[in-house]
């Protein structure tokens, strides 16, 4: 759910401000729904047995879904502030397995007065605190 961050603006954002943490359970059905909605219906994203045949520990989450989940962490934080997500980079370090409890984290790392933007680090971790997907994002605030 987007936060009511309508008072969030370039002036009030501070380096070190946190996004999340947001804990959630990622179900296999959610991953299948994403695979279906985005035309990525391939065995490694939909079926444990077929994924194991490909040498994976079980069905995995598409990298693009992890990117979408992380971008939602940022856009939920922006809420109704009128800010815009202008850039996002992700690195897939380890496969994200569904049927696990995952946590999204982020914090503001920099502010650029000239561009009216804030930079943030974002990541997705599992129950063991392993950062499976890490990334950065840029948010532009209206002037």
């Amino acid at each position, binding site marked *: *759910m*987007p936060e009511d961050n309508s008072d969030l603006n370039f002036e009030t954002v501070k380096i070190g401000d946190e996004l999340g943490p947001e804990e959630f359970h990622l179900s296999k059905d*959610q991953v299948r*729904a*994403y695979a*279906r*909605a*985005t*035309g990525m219906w391939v065995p490694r994203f939909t079926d444990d047995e077929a994924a194991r045949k490909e040498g994976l520990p079980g069905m995995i989450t598409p*990298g*693009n*879904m992890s*990117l*979408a*989940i992380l*971008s*939602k962490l940022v*856009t*939920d934080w922006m809420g109704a502030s*009128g800010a*815009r*997500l*202008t*850039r*996002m*980079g*992700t*690195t*897939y370090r380890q496969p994200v397995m569904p049927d696990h409890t995952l946590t999204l984290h982020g914090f503001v790392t920099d502010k650029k007065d000239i561009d009216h933007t804030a930079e943030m680090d974002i990541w997705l971790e599992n129950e063991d605190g392993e950062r499976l997907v890490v*990334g950065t994002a840029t948010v532009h605030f209206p002037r």
Partner: protein
Amino acid sequence: MVDYDPAIIGRVFETTEPLQVSAEMVANFCTAIGESNPLHTDADAAKKGPYAGITAPPSFAVTFRNGQHFFQHVPRYGKQGFDAGKDVEFVGPIRPGDAITLSSHVKEIYEKTGRTGSMVFVIVRTTLTNQKSEVVAHIDHRFMNRT
């Protein structure tokens, strides 16, 4: 030094047929990622928003399928290639009704030595354009090859 033909850098190797974005595609995507922001899900609320109508969430930009011949144009080194990540620049909104075209080129090839050995990174840039020839996003695919 990585060996490659410098002429491939920047040359568009594939442009897809336009793909029409339907309201249903955007709605299914929102459901699948748990998107509840009314600017993406509620036509009435979105009408009062900055784009005067429903727009897809930014990450919808990465759901478009690359051209059929995409992977045969991505240079490979060594035995294993991995999708190491993506860098996306969200330039403008994607709305239901848009027809999106993808054009791809090799942007950069470089070698890096990390703690697990030598790797070659191939960056392929895909630019998404709508039916008005407006760029809506740039997606840099980062492919990592172990040599």
